[in-house]
């Protein structure tokens, strides 16, 4: 573009980005002529790259995935590894189970996925043999794993026990470059030690928000598959998974919670919806105080802290005391009449409208979807026959 006059011209098509909420945002200081690049829901990265220029060393983070994603606890391990890694160290994530999310915002430089080692199948000896092969080939300087109950706490302890010559710590609640710490003596003392080779990290020891992103390059899983063949014949077998009826399960353990607030006028509709979704029922304090639900259903600062994957907040304003109880919930869906309610800022998806009407519509939609699913299966089996 040539300037004919000395008048400062403003490019009418300045560079902008489309944010996740659909709003265009102009970034001052960006000089390209016309840039319209979409920021997808899953990738909001215009952060600087942390990735090491020349990776001399590697740290390894091992975690099982669930439904194609890593949970917050696993992400905390990745964040800890990335924060503590120096400029020459690459963070490698070894994901056991399938992975369908991008880990660049989790600080990962290289990703290795072994989808056959899903946490639902109990195969600890195969997993251990595989992980040890990976360790032998990567030679990581440190290993991080979430100390959880979906297999990593168990696998981590097997790994530690199998190499007694290496230093390790479990239940680690505090981590920095100088030391690690955990509770000992039945939680009556905090104990510090220098950084070991293997760290099993307790939940919430690290903040997942990172000021940088990383390349998250996928490493060929084929090499991993080849390594799998060396595993011995297992002395373990899985007979199958069971899920406890959502209505009977303790709220703290529930994976899907439909929760009612002051905006729910008809409790029966909410119960029907919860049953249709096979979800447990929770409530805000106001709904409990009104006598609509028993005290053990209350979620929040003075109620229960829940960690469901899906939290469906219906007619709940999202007061701070309530949000405290759902901080570990991954997917929050809200129905509220008021689009400025605090819950809308917390929710991943918000529907603005009347709770009763949307619940009724959703109950019908679910019933329809289930019928279609059943007929699809029937048709498929008929065709197969």
């Amino acid at each position: 573009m040539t300037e004919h006059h000395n008048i400062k011209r403003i490019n009418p098509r300045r560079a902008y980005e489309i944010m996740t909420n659909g709003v265009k945002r102009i970034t001052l200081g960006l000089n390209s002529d016309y840039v319209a690049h979409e920021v997808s829901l899953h990738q909001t990265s215009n952060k600087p790259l942390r990735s090491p220029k020349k990776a001399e060393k590697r740290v390894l983070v091992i975690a099982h995935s669930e439904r194609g994603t890593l949970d917050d606890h696993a992400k905390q391990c990745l964040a800890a590894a990335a924060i503590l890694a120096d400029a020459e160290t690459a963070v490698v994530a070894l994901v056991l189970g399938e992975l369908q999310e991008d880990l660049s915002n989790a600080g990962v430089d290289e990703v290795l996925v072994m989808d056959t080692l899903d946490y639902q199948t109990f195969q600890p000896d195969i997993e251990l043999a595989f992980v040890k092969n990976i360790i032998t080939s990567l030679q990581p300087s440190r290993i991080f794993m979430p100390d959880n109950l979906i297999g990593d706490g168990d696998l981590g302890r097997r790994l530690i026990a199998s190499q007694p010559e290496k230093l390790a710590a479990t239940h680690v609640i505090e981590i920095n470059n100088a030391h690690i710490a955990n509770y000992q003596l039945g939680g009556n003392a905090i104990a510090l030690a220098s950084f070991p080779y293997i760290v099993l990290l307790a939940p919430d020891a690290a903040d997942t928000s990172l000021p940088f992103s990383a390349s998250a390059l996928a490493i060929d899983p084929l090499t991993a598959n080849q390594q799998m063949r060396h595993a011995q014949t297992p002395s373990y077998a899985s007979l199958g998974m069971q899920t406890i009826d959502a209505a009977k399960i303790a709220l703290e353990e529930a994976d899907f919670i439909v929760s009612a607030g002051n905006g729910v006028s008809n409790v029966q509709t909410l119960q029907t919806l919860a049953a249709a979704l096979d979800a447990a029922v929770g409530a805000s304090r106001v709904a409990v105080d009104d006598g609509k639900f028993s005290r053990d259903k209350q979620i929040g600062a003075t109620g229960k802290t829940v960690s469901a994957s899906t939290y469906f907040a219906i007619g709940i304003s999202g007061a701070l005391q309530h949000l405290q109880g759902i901080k570990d919930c991954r997917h929050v869906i809200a129905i509220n009449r008021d689009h400025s309610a605090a819950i809308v800022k917390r929710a991943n998806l918000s529907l603005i409208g009347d709770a009763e009407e949307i619940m009724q519509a959703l109950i019908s939609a679910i019933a329809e979807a289930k019928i279609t699913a059943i007929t699809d299966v029937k048709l498929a089996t008929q065709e197969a026959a």
Partner: protein
Amino acid sequence: MSIKNIAALVSVGRHPVSGEARHCRNDSLAMTLGLALTSHLNATETNTVSFKVLHAGNANNTALKDYLALGASHIDMIDVAAESLIIDALAANLTNTDLILTGSRAENGLDSGMLPYQLAEKLGFSLVANALAIQQTTDGLTGGLEVLQFLPKGKRRSVTVQLPAVIVVHPLAPVELRHAYARQVTGTINQQASPLTHATPQEKTLKWQTETILRKPIKLKARENKSGHARMLSATVSENKGGAVVIEGNSVEKAQVILGYLREHRLINF
């Protein structure tokens, strides 16, 4: 292989407030499960099953009496000179055992939950953790144990494991503990000196330093040392929080949006 010898490992617990020595609840669950399985097998099988309760540590511990009150008629106590000898002392005592039950985490030491794993490694036993219930597999061919495992979010998993095995019991195992003073009086504690006087070539261990004051742990956070522009950018990124908001459309359409979201993230299976 049918089960002949069962052992439960018990450690000394600690009262959360007074700090007084007492039984460790996790270990009591393991012991009670072992007692129940033993009496069940003795009632249904032809061969007799023996059960022992084992502790390695300091002889003068009154807390062990709690385990007598909770149902152990007899406790074997191995007197070990140092903590580093515990695993070896237990392993030497347990070589002929088919099934070892332990708690998930002790309350009076490092509490790492590592002991069962180190023991299984040393003895070459299989190991299943987070056990809620155990039973002998019905089909004699596999000759093992069926274990119901705890998984978070209302999930449970049934697995089988070959014997000999170490089973680590989960704190939520549905076991009722019954305390009876009479049993505490009649029960016996048999003390035996450890044959080991010094440890086999020591495995490396971390040197822990215990702080005197119990404080909250400090969360690891990324340090921000960036240019002003970069800071602005990351501020807009976090501002971006909060998901999609659907205002337009009727209830039926909104219901479809919800279903779509649940399906996209595979939160439902219909």
